[in-house]
């Protein structure tokens, strides 16, 4: 009894440029060979020159910023005088904003750990590698799961009054439902959205969420972590 073939054989016989090659491409997860050539150039000088120009432009911009704006420096550190509000560096203000809603073990330990683990495992899941459109298979079942997950998560967020997460989450869920709509002639945008895999939606949700929470924490939080306007001078 012979095993079923788990690969496709392909031949490249452009012998003027390359020797004859036989490529075995297993499953759909490996990169397919779809063209005969891909033009290459020398790393030196083509690649290195571009890299050097890019870094020089960046350096010029940063030097200009450094000449125009001084780095902040407040009074000498004093453990007896607590500023109100006391804020972490900007890239942690999203977490500090979550700390306003959830206990420290959730906002400060559980969520960052899950984010880092989530990032690490992305390339190790077949679903993220094949990256099929979310609605290409089991459409009805997936729509049902999405509805249930969104509803449960929304209730949870509403109970904790986390509107800064609730509203964007609902908007993104709405665009997921929008992309799943079956219309006779879908618009370009819908076709583009419908081609996106689950990982795209999760990552975009994370990006939007992180940006919104960081902006709120940075510009809209004043004394006692109360909501203030950026121009109130209290942030």
């Amino acid at each position: 009894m012979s095993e079923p073939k788990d690969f496709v054989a392909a031949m490249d016989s452009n012998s003027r440029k390359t020797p004859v090659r036989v490529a075995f491409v297993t499953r759909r997860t490996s990169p397919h060979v779809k063209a005969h050539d891909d033009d290459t150039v020398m790393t030196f000088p083509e690649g290195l020159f571009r890299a050097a120009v890019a870094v020089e432009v960046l350096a010029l911009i940063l030097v200009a910023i450094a000449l125009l704006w001084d780095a902040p420096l407040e009074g000498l550190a004093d453990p007896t005088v607590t500023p109100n509000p006391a804020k972490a560096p900007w890239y942690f203000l999203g977490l500090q904003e979550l700390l306003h809603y959830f206990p420290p073990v959730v906002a400060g330990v559980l969520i960052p750990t899950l984010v880092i683990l989530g990032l690490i495992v992305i390339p190790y899941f077949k679903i993220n590698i094949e990256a099929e459109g979310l609605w290409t298979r089991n459409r009805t079942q997936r729509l049902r799961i999405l509805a249930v997950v969104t509803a449960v998560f929304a209730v949870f967020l509403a109970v904790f009054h986390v509107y800064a997460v609730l509203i964007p989450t609902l908007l993104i869920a709405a665009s997921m439902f929008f992309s799943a709509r079956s219309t006779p002639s879908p618009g370009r945008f819908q076709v583009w959205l419908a081609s996106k895999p689950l990982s795209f939606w999760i990552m975009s949700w994370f990006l939007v969420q992180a940006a919104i929470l960081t902006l709120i924490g940075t510009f809209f939080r004043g004394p006692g972590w109360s909501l203030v306007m950026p121009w109130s001078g209290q942030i």
Partner: protein
Amino acid sequence: MANSLAEQLANLRDTRVWRSIFRSGFGPTNLHRALAVQQNVFLHLSSVKIRKRSLSFRVTWFLGTLSLGTFLILVATGIPLMLYYHPSVPQAYADMKDLRFAVSAGVFLRNLHRWSAHAMVLLVFAHLFKVFYRGAYRPPREFNWVIGVVLLMLTLFLSYTGYLLPWDQLAFWAITVGSNLISAVPVFGTKIRFLVLGGHTVNANALLRFYVLHCVVLPLAAAIFVAIHFWRIRKDGGIYSGEIKKP
């Protein structure tokens, strides 16, 4: 003077001393260009040839290169800053004042270091999202993605440890807020915080620990992981330049 500068340089490149340093020599052929990369300890992390498509701005937005650029600027400004800095209380703060009022271009050095640090955090995040949205994490590049996540964390730790060093109110309370979160870790929380700060609160020990982490441990770790990251790009088949359309 019959000899132009170019000729003199050419002569210099022919000397035995020069050739003992740069064995490959200098010339207009692709062999010379290949050797320039392959025979250089730093450049040989990269392959000698690179796909033309991967060089276009659209593919990478140069975010990885620019992240490295900020890192280099931070090393170049950080070392002179170390010459004017004592990691002790309250001298650290006095050094900030000296940088502003006494050291030539001291305020510029500190500004450039601080703004570049913010830029590096932003660029590394942007790099992560760009790589994700292009699907460049897919095999065989999955482990390089993981190294990238490690580099993201190193970047955050570098920025965070540097945040304390000016020893002003902003620094002190930002680190206090952050380190209070560590004590929320179940069971070992307060012990880990004690280890990080060298005490129960942010104090002179914490300043010294953050200084050593910021100037020695974390930059070394970052340099090593950056080297692996670049080397893996080459080993995993070059910069991902997307699906190739049939001609």
